[in-house]
């Protein structure tokens, strides 16, 4: 946690709290998955929280977000309340997509949160299009597009990067390089393993950052987004990170060692940030406890919210397949 910048007490605690909110929420998800309250695929962000939290600090209300199936962290950091997220995974009407999406497909129109996209690479063209519209309709707005390093293999990555740079669109591409695409290690998947260098093939400005440090991510995202907002075209940010848990809930993790996981856990941004905030006297023990307590309560409340919900009426199954009007 070296890049201090102008980090004040309040912001320091905020970053910590945001990461903790994601961590605790997802620990609960894992538990509820075991209890079969949550079903389908569940991809946790455990270990990678600093990335979404860091980037999200720089985004404004007018900005747009495109994420993947591993998007709980982004949704929470964007400020979508946990209740509808949890209810979504319960498959309830109160869910953020009325139970149609589940864990992989969170959407929130009011937050300009455009998924929850479960086709690897499929979100990038979407982000290009959002930015194309924003350039016309909401000048100054930026689209942040998150994806894993695995997506860099897909043709849609290539096509989208070129379009964004060619048309000078306001997109921040954030590559969450956690070293694996499911079980595929980056060095077996890419001839060029420095993902940020790929951006250079499109003449797009790019940088890589320590994705285990929210302050470093925030600083890099701020540099990039200021430039983008000023109308200088897109930018690319590679964040080096790691997921602590399995890819999804069906993964024997044959492709990596316990030792490797342990090594990365030493970089866990949450305890490290806590330690650093305490050492620098930016967070007292009491403040920590209050935060922890509040976060626990928030997560519990989301479970209560979900538990109190009810399934969408089956008669509504075909609703929204085609829309009667464009929601405003």
């Amino acid at each position, binding site marked *: 946690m070296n890049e201090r910048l102008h980090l004040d007490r309040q912001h320091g605690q905020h970053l910590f709290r945001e990461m903790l909110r994601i961590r605790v929420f997802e620990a609960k998800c894992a538990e509820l998955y075991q209890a079969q309250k949550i079903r389908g695929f569940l991809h946790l962000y455990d270990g990678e929280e600093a990335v979404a939290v860091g980037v999200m600090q720089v985004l404004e209300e007018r900005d747009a977000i495109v994420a993947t199936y591993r998007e709980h962290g982004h949704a929470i950091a964007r400020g979508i309340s946990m209740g509808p997220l949890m209810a979504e995974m319960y498959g309830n009407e109160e869910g953020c997509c009325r*139970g*149609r*999406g589940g864990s992989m497909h969170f959407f*929130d129109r009011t937050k300009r949160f455009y998924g929850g996209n479960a086709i690897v690479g499929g979100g990038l063209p979407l982000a290009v299009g959002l930015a*194309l519209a924003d350039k016309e309709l909401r000048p100054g707005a930026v689209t942040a597009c998150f994806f894993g390093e695995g997506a860099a293999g897909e043709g849609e990555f290539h096509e989208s990067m070129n379009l964004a740079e060619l048309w000078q669109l306001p997109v921040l591409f954030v590559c969450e390089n956690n070293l694996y695409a499911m079980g595929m290690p980056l060095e077996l998947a890419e001839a060029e393993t420095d993902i940020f260098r790929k951006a250079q093939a499109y003449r797009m400005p790019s940088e890589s950052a320590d994705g285990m440090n929210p302050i470093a991510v925030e600083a890099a995202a701020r540099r990039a987004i200021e430039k983008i907002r000023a109308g200088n075209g897109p930018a690319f940010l590679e964040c080096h990170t790691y997921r602590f848990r399995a890819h999804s809930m069906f993964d024997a993790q044959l492709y990596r060692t316990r030792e490797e996981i342990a090594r990365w856990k030493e970089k866990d941004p949450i305890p490290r940030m806590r330690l650093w905030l305490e050492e620098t006297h930016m967070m007292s023990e009491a403040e920590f406890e209050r935060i922890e307590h509040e976060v626990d309560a928030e997560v519990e409340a989301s479970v209560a919210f979900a538990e109190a919900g009810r399934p969408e009426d089956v008669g509504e199954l075909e609703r929204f397949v085609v829309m009667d009007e464009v929601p405003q």
Partner: protein
Amino acid sequence: MNDAGAQPVRMTYREAHRQAIREALTSDPRTFLMGEDVGLYGGCYAVSKGLLAEFGPNRIRDTPLAESAFVGAGIGAAIAGMRPIVEIMTCNFSLLALDQILNNAATFAHMSGGQFAVPLVIRMATGAGLQLAAQHSHSLEGWYAHIPGLRVLAPATVEDARYMLKAALADPNPVLIFEHVVLYNAEGDLDPSIQSVDIGTAKVRRPGRDVSVLTYGNGLPKSLAAAETLASEGIEAEVVDLRVLRPLDNDTIFGSVARTRRCVIVDEGWKSGSISAEIAARLCEDLFFELDAPIRRICSREVPIPYARHLEEAALPQIPAIVETVRSLVRPR
């Protein structure tokens, strides 16, 4: 504007599409046309010729060869408030964008619980008949009609070419328009008192009592020609232009077949799993007791369309086959 006495206006199917695009761009600042060679080149089938000079490069936006990304970008732009018209040169290349069309455009509204709509129009050329061989001659409109969330249009007349786009852009959902390559040079008269068409119904293009010939796209002129021949033999074929392949207009289809009690479907798609199969299945489910004869389908032969003219002709539905099939149904030996 509906000057009753006005003269009909003659124009080509190509020109009608061009005027439709021009009207859309003029009437809604959120609309733009995007695709390969729509600008400088003037459109691979010359549909958008002249529009770049008129509307500039932001609204007639040439794209690199990147079907998946520019279709996806159209989806994103539609979701964020624009009303894009994306042109994929031909449906043959749309396969490269199918992930975006099926997994994004067609699912976004439902998957998000109705928070978003995708008011996007995708135009593409379709069809065989120009000796363009196996990779440039697909007729995929019927295949696309399988996908929930999409509306699929197949304009066969100059009127539909002129006015379907307006209705498609007014639809809050993704609409695919398949323009048949063989029809671009076809001419037709526009009735000036008509300024719009619906995109929900099939239309009887020629009434008849003896048999219903259901068709669309380039099957329409072929079927109408066949009906002329048949009329000279005293057989009155009713020719129904499906126009909308998804959702199918059951009312008009069933209405016609219930009257004639016989049905021939003319479809340039490959036979197995074609839209003609769906229509036959529906008739067999819901009109079973009204049918006097088996349904007949005249489709493309199940081959990659070959280059040689005589082979291509043999692969596609042709007028003599329609005449003969109808004859055998109406006057079985």
